[in-house]
């Protein structure tokens, strides 16, 4: 069963070719790996491939099929594009993934200011929401030119991480 997985801008196709317990032969795009993969319910992965040891921890995000992977000192956002996601993308006739027209909180905090309302025209780079957390205020900019389609929060409300705040069309 093959899936597409998005890592930053790259979309890779993955498929398991053979498996014997934790030993897998797995194809990522055109490359075939023999890996020894162990993982547990807490999302901790130990992968041995070509004599190297990879230590990865996966944390599911609140959006389904989205994960944050933690490795040595760094973190990456990954998204699984399965049949359903592909269908939705094809149906809307757009290649936009959720993240590209939506402002999502990277961290929990409190909404300080939203200078626009639904229907307003915004330009890429304009501040459309200010969130405060841990004694600091952060401004979030419009990722593209467009019209504000939805605002899901109010000034003064508390927000969770990865919550959808504003959608631009």
């Amino acid at each position, binding site marked *: *069963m093959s*899936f597409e*997985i998005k*890592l930053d801008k*790259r979309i*890779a196709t*993955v498929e*398991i070719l053979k*498996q014997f*317990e*934790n030993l*897998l032969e*797995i194809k*990522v795009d055109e*490359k075939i*790996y023999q*890996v020894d*993969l*162990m*993982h*547990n*319910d*807490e*999302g901790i*992965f130990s*992968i041995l*491939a*070509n004599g*190297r040891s*990879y230590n*990865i*921890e*996966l*944390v*599911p995000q609140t959006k389904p*099929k989205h*994960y*944050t*992977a*933690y*490795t*040595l*000192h*760094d*973190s990456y956002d*990954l998204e*699984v594009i*399965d049949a359903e996601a592909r269908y939705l993308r094809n149906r809307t006739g757009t290649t936009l993934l959720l993240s590209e027209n939506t402002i999502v909180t*990277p*961290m*929990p*905090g*409190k909404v300080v200011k939203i200078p626009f309302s639904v229907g307003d025209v915004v330009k890429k780079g304009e501040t459309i929401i200010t969130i405060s*957390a*841990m*004694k*600091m205020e*952060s401004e979030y900019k419009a990722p593209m030119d467009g019209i504000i389609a939805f605002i899901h929060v109010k000034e003064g409300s*508390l927000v969770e*991480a990865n919550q959808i705040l504003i959608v631009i069309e």
Partner: protein
Amino acid sequence: MKKIKKILIANRGEIAIRIMRTCREMGISTVAVFSDADRTSMHVRYADEAYNIGPAASVVSYLKLDKIIEVAVNCQADAIHPGYGFLSENSEFARKCAENGIIFIGPTPEVIDQMGDKIKARLTMIAAGVPVVPGTTESIKTEKEAIDTIREIGLPVMVKASAGGGGKGMRLITNEKDILSLVRSARSEALSSFGNDSVYIEKYISSPHHIEFQILGDQHGNVLHLFERECSVQRRHQKMLEETPSPLMTPELRLKMGAYAVEAARAVNYTGAGTIEFLVDNNLNFYFLEMNTRLQVEHPITERVTGIDLVKQQILVAEGHPLSFTQDQLKQTGHAIECRIYAEDSDNNFMPNPGKIYNITEPLGFGVRTDGYVYEGYEIPIHYDSMISKLIVWAENRTEAIERMKRALYEYKITGVKTSIKFLARIMDTPDFRSGNYDTNFIEKNKDILHAPLKSTEDFEDMLIIATYIEYLDQLNINQTSKVMYPAKNRWKKYTYQKNFERL
């Protein structure tokens, strides 16, 4: 001499736990206070007793001095330790503790007042013969006076609010034509922030070193210093790592600065632990900057090289004991470095990143200490500071200490929030840091190295993709058990499955 049997810690997070650890060793029982947002904080779980003091915002909880004193009186605490931040440099709090028969673990309210006002502190230091940054000794009340003074001192200068703090009401003037507008904006910001538009003017020292001396004084007139801490690695005027000894220090300079630091503390009859901060330029000229009348965040590196528990000393001094050692008996052994682990996104202007901790693995091994407070499943509140722990290493010399810190940072795994660990590891690899040739301009100067995009190989990316794929298959497996035997089952899973099955 009054024996302290119970201490209320008027603080939260790592410093509250740090203080309680010493209390436990001394057989002193501990009282935690907490806001609504901190019910599950580790300091509440670690303490012998714990009391709620109000809502999440610190103005109505950790800064509510009457409420905290009321709790201390009701639970019959002998003393209050304020930690750092919050009420630690609030003279009214120290005064009210005394009025209620509670020992405030820190200096007297008079000393807090005297050193808290920047102009008063400058005057005290000048009187004691301690070098200060050239500038005014009185607050400046009119615009004309300000401009005349600036001309007299010569550019560049810093204009600072007398009642200031936290960078508010502070302006750097480097250009003749900006004098008037910057003086005006400093004064108006000072007025709106502190209700007082008086300012003072100091010569600006470009890219200085920030070096501080740890002071200890007792109630019998003994004052000594526990050497320096180099604190020049800063971002947004906030320290990121500290080390001792300072790579800049020479034995002669240490002797001289140490003597002035002791002189400065003696000038105000200082009792307890305190810190004298100096600015040092590249020609080793040094100037008094300010005194912190409390325990510092970075105190563990001093503890590590001197072997002295500073919190224990604070408590003994508060009980009235004379210091049990002299200046000659103190020495620095080896080298210590502290890294501050913040919940923040270093690649995104150090933006705070609160959230829930999924997994945490703290480093262990020879010469490693962590002072932290988060645990698995703990949600870091959005209301307070973003520091989640301090990682302190000790080694025989600086090179070994840097290698040990790199190793410890490598072992440190925190998932669920972004942290400064990656950034700190890069500092350890930066040539200017390794050579010890750095000042407060370090992060700005080395930003290309520190923020360079991570070079991840394609194999490495593929492993991330494989892990995500397997995890997702696994999820499907849980939801659709009747379908095909998905290949992602592994032995750990199978084992749990079997165990559950056997239970039936």
